């Protein structure tokens, strides 16, 4: 009985847990994602809202970052694409609830996270862009796959869908208990490799958002089980690190087996011998190897090549 009372007290006290957030954390009231101040630097819809007929044909890549991350996750791709004059316009979307305050994050659902991707797509379609591709990292991937499954992208079917370390199954299986353990612990925190990461990722993860994360990956897993049909104009490419401590590599298998393609599509999977989760983002990490840099460059080149392919 004593143990039960202690457990209950622990439970009640932990429910009120709020982390001690400092102004050096993205979670605080000082640091926000830069795309909120200067959307024209991040979103094609804000940068070129009235494209010329020629610009309407340019390939646009909508880039969605992962859970608790920000637009920073795709800075390196944008910089690389610019440096090689790829001719691709990149929209770095900030997921809803992200890049703001802890309370904003805590109160957001995965539908809010996804809404920013869909909004940018709709704005681009409205503006007349006709060659739209998507790239996602980690949780950005199930958010994109769900849009495809629910047929939100019917107006202009995507040209390419590129998934980098998608998460359908987490490496840490305790996430599956988020609904049970979450209310007892209130939130979890992460250790950063650098101050740069601290500026661009949430330090604290409210349990409510972990439940949302579990929800979106469960929903999309079930959608993949029933089969997600690619539009005939769409190709898909999956890049999965095989020693990823965040997104289990079986996520790649589940997506590959769950996507229904036909003779018009190409469906490619690249199982890559790497320990890095989201191989396309190396800035801010410790112990980056030459091999990591080479993998990143290869993937960037393939992204550019695929996105620039003639649209069907």
């Amino acid at each position, binding site marked *: 009985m004593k143990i039960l009372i202690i457990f209950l007290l622990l439970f009640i006290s932990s429910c009120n847990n709020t982390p001690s957030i400092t102004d050096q954390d993205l979670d605080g009231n000082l640091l926000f994602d830069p795309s909120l101040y200067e959307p024209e630097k991040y979103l094609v819809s804000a940068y070129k809202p009235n494209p010329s007929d020629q610009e309407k044909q340019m390939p646009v890549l909508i880039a969605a970052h992962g859970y608790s991350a920000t637009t920073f996750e795709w800075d390196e791709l944008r910089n690389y694409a610019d440096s090689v004059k790829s001719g691709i316009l990149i929209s770095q979307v900030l997921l809803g609830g992200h890049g703001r305050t802890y309370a904003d994050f805590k109160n957001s659902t995965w539908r809010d996270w996804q809404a920013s991707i869909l909004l940018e797509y709709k704005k681009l379609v409205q503006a007349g862009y006709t060659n739209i591709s998507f790239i996602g990292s980690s949780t950005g991937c199930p958010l994109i796959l769900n849009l495809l499954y629910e047929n939100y992208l019917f107006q202009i079917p995507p040209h390419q869908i590129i998934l980098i370390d998608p998460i359908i199954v987490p*490496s840490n299986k305790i996430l*599956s208990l988020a609904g*049970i353990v979450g209310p007892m612990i209130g939130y979890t925190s992460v250790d950063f490799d650098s101050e740069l990461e601290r500026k661009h990722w949430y330090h604290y993860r409210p349990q409510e958002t972990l439940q949302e994360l579990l929800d979106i990956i469960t929903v999309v897993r079930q959608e993949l*089980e029933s*089969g997600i049909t690619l539009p005939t104009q769409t190709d898909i490419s999956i890049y999965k690190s095989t020693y990823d401590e965040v997104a289990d590599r079986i996520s790649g298998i*589940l997506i*590959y087996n769950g996507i229904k393609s036909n003779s018009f599509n190409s469906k490619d999977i690249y199982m890559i011998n790497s320990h890095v989760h989201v191989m396309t983002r190396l800035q801010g990490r410790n112990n980056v190897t030459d091999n990591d840099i080479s993998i990143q460059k290869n993937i960037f080149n393939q992204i550019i090549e695929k996105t620039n392919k003639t649209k069907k």
Partner: protein
Amino acid sequence: MFIYSYLLSFFIFLAFSFTLCATEPELSLGLKFQKTHKLYYENGISAEYSSSAFLGDKFHSGFSIITSRFGSAFNSNAIKQDIFLLHTSYSFLDKAIVNPFIKLNAGFIIADYQDPVFDNIDNTMPLSSIDFGLSYSPTMPLKAQASFGYNIITSDGTSGVGTVYPLYFNFLIMWNILK
């Protein structure tokens, strides 16, 4: 293949031990239904043996074979995976209609990833789990069990089969064929 020989020798051991028993042994065969929390349904068969001469009446030993092929992977793109377990349970009460029990399971899982591109990814791993549940036996040959269990070994994304999650729920319906 070693596990098949293991299972075979286990059967032989069972057959041998209950022929030696003086008291009434119990050999129950039945169906097992499993739902892993936030993952698959896996269904299959289970067998349990108990006798006073073999560990005592409160212990039941047996095996289960369950598969997602008769569950979530039936007519779907879920991973086709088969689970082979040996188990021993201990019932807390003597011949009660509702009897709490604890069960230890050990075995392995094999997954079929369907495409040679995944040949380098582990498709098997050992399993070890513990169940807590209630057994219900309203009329003697019939027995139903409900339990929840916890997989002590789960995959970590870098080795093993990714679809081994910690928490699961079991329902068994069994018939004592020696009664």
